[in-house]
C-alpha cells in the first residue's frame, strides 16, 4: 500500500505520538504539582504519626480495645481504626469488644476526661491530645 493513504497513516501516527507525548508530560507535571491523591488533607499521614506514638507503650500486648468519640462506619472512626491497626500491627485492635487494655482516640483531652469520669476505665498514660492508654478497673 502506497500513495496518499500511506502518507495519511504516517501523518496520523506522528500526530498521535506527539499528542500522547504532550499528554504524558502534562500528566507528569500535574502529578508533580498536586501530589496529594485521594487523601487531600494528608489525614492518613497525620493519623499514622499520631498512632505511631503508641508503639512503645503497647509493646508486648497481644490485643487492645479501641475507644473513640467518632462515628464508626465509613466515617472518621472507621478510618481511625484502620490506620491504628496499620501502625500497630501485629498487635490486634479489637474495636468491637471490651478489652482489659484499650487505646482512646478522642477529639480533645476534655472529651477524654468526661468519658473517663463516666466509665470503668482508668488512665494508664496520656500520649497526645485525646490519645491515651486506658485500663479497665471495673468488672
Amino acid at each position, binding site marked *: 500500500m502506497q500513495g496518499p493513504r500511506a502518507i495519511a497513516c504516517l501523518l496520523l501516527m506522528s*500526530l498521535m*505520538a506527539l499528542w500522547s507525548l504532550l499528554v504524558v508530560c502534562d*500528566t*507528569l507535571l500535574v*502529578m508533580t504539582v498536586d501530589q496529594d491523591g*485521594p487523601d487531600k488533607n*494528608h489525614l492518613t499521614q497525620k493519623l499514622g504519626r499520631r498512632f505511631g506514638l503508641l508503639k512503645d507503650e503497647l509493646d508486648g500486648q497481644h490485643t487492645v480495645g479501641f475507644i473513640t468519640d467518632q462515628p464508626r462506619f465509613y466515617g472518621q472512626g472507621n478510618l481511625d*481504626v484502620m490506620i491504628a491497626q496499620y501502625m500497630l500491627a*501485629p498487635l490486634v485492635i479489637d474495636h468491637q469488644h471490651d478489652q482489659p487494655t484499650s487505646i482512646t482516640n478522642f477529639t480533645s483531652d476534655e472529651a477524654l476526661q468526661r468519658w473517663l469520669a463516666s466509665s470503668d476505665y482508668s488512665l494508664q498514660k496520656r500520649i497526645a491530645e485525646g490519645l491515651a492508654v486506658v485500663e479497665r478497673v471495673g468488672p
Partner: protein
Amino acid sequence: MTVILPFIALAANIFTGWCMVNWLWPRRAQGGEAWFIFFLSACVGLGTGSLGSFIWRIALWWLPLGFVLIDVALLVIFATLWRLRSRGEQVAPVNTNKADDTSRRGASKYLPVMALGLAIVCAITVFRISQVHPHGQWDAQAIWNVKAKFLLYGQAQWTNMFAAPVARSDYPLLLPLTIARLWSYQGYDSTIVPQVLTVTWLLATTGLIVTSLSVLAGVRHAALATLILLTSKLFLELCSWQYADTAMSMFILAALGTVALWRPQYGQTGRLLILAGFCAGCAAWTKNEGLLFALALTIAFIVATTFTHGGRTMGHGLKYLLLGMTPMICLVVFFKLVWGGPSDLFSDQNLDQMLTHLIQPDRHRLVWKSMFDSLGRILHVPLMLLTVLYTLLVGIHRTRAALLAPAVAAIATLVMVVGYASIYLITPHDLQWHLSTSNERLLLQLWPGAVLMIFLLPKSPESLRLVV
C-alpha cells in the same frame, strides 16, 4: 547493608522467573522476544516468590532464615530445570504481523528504547510522589501493607490478621507476601520496599507492552502503544498510591501478551500457554477480580481458538493453559477454604436479594453510566478516536491466525467488564458508594490489556512500505 538486601532478593526473584520462563519457552529467544522474556520474568518470578513465601509462612515459619532457604531452593530448582532442558527443539520463530523487517532499520529501531525511556521518567516521578505518602494511600495501609506487617512480625500468629480490623480480609496474599518477604531480608518494615515494588509493576507493564508489540506488530506500534498507555493519569496515580490494581493489570497483560505469542499453526507446543496460565493464576492470587480474569481468559481462549484454529487445537492448548493456572488457583482455593472465606459481596445477602437487585432497571442504568464515565476518565478520548481512525485507514488483519490474539484479549476484556457490572448490580453495599470507590480502578486493571488488543488489530505500518 540490610538496606540493599531486599533489592538483591528482588533481583534474585526475577532471575528465578527468568530461569522458569526460559525452561518453558519453546525456542531460543532473540531481540524483542528476549526482552519480553525479561519483563515476563519479573511477573513470573514475583508470583513464584509469593508461592514460596506462603510455604514459608505456613510450614517453615519456625526455621531461622526459612524465607532465604525457600528462595534459594526455588532458584536452584528452576535454574537446574532450565539447564537440563533440551535446547534442540526446532520451532519456527514467532510469527510477526509485520510485512517485512523495515522497522529494524533507520531511526525506528530506537523507538522502543525511547518509549521505555519515557516509562523510566514516569517511574521516577511515581517514585518521588510516593515518597510524599510513604505508607501509601488508604488501600495500601488498610489492606496490603498491614497484612504484610502481620506476615512479617506475626510468626505463627500471622493469622491474627483475620481477627483484626483489616479491610478485605478475604483478598488473597500475593502482594502482602511479596512485601513481607522483602522486608524479612531487611529485618524490619520499611516504606521503601512497597515503593520500589510499585515502580516494578509500572516498569514491567510498560516493558511488556513495548516488547510484545515490537515482536508482534512492529516497533512503531510498540512505541505508540506505550505512549498511549502512559497517557492514563489514573494508571500513574495508582502506582504512586501503592494500590494492587497496577499489579493486577501487569499480570493480566502478561497473560494476554504470552497468549498472543503462541502460534499453533507453526506446530508450537503449549509451553507458552503454561506461562500465560501461570500469570492468570498470579492475578487470581493478587485480588479476587483475578479469579474472574482466570475464568474470562479460559472462556476467551476456548471461543477464539475454536473460531480461528478449530476445536482440536483449542483442546490441545486449553490443557496447557489450565495446567499453568493450576498451582496458583489451588493456592487461592486453599486460602479461601482455610482463612479467607467468601467475599462480603456474597456472604452478606441471599439469592433472593441478589435477584431483586439484578432486575432493577435503575441499578443497570447507574452501573453502565458509571462504567462509561470511568472509561472517559481512564483513556484520552480524542486520542482513542484518532486510534480508531488510524486503524480504519491502515486496515485490520483478516487472516484467522492473526486475529487469535486480539480476539482472546477482546473477549477476555468483555467478559471482565460484564463480570464487574454484574457484581455491581448485585452488591449488598450502597451502590453509589461502591461504584465511586472502585469502578475506575477495576476498569484500569484492563487498560494495559486493552491497549495491547487495540494495537494487535491494525496491520503494521511496515506494510505501508514507508521507512521513517
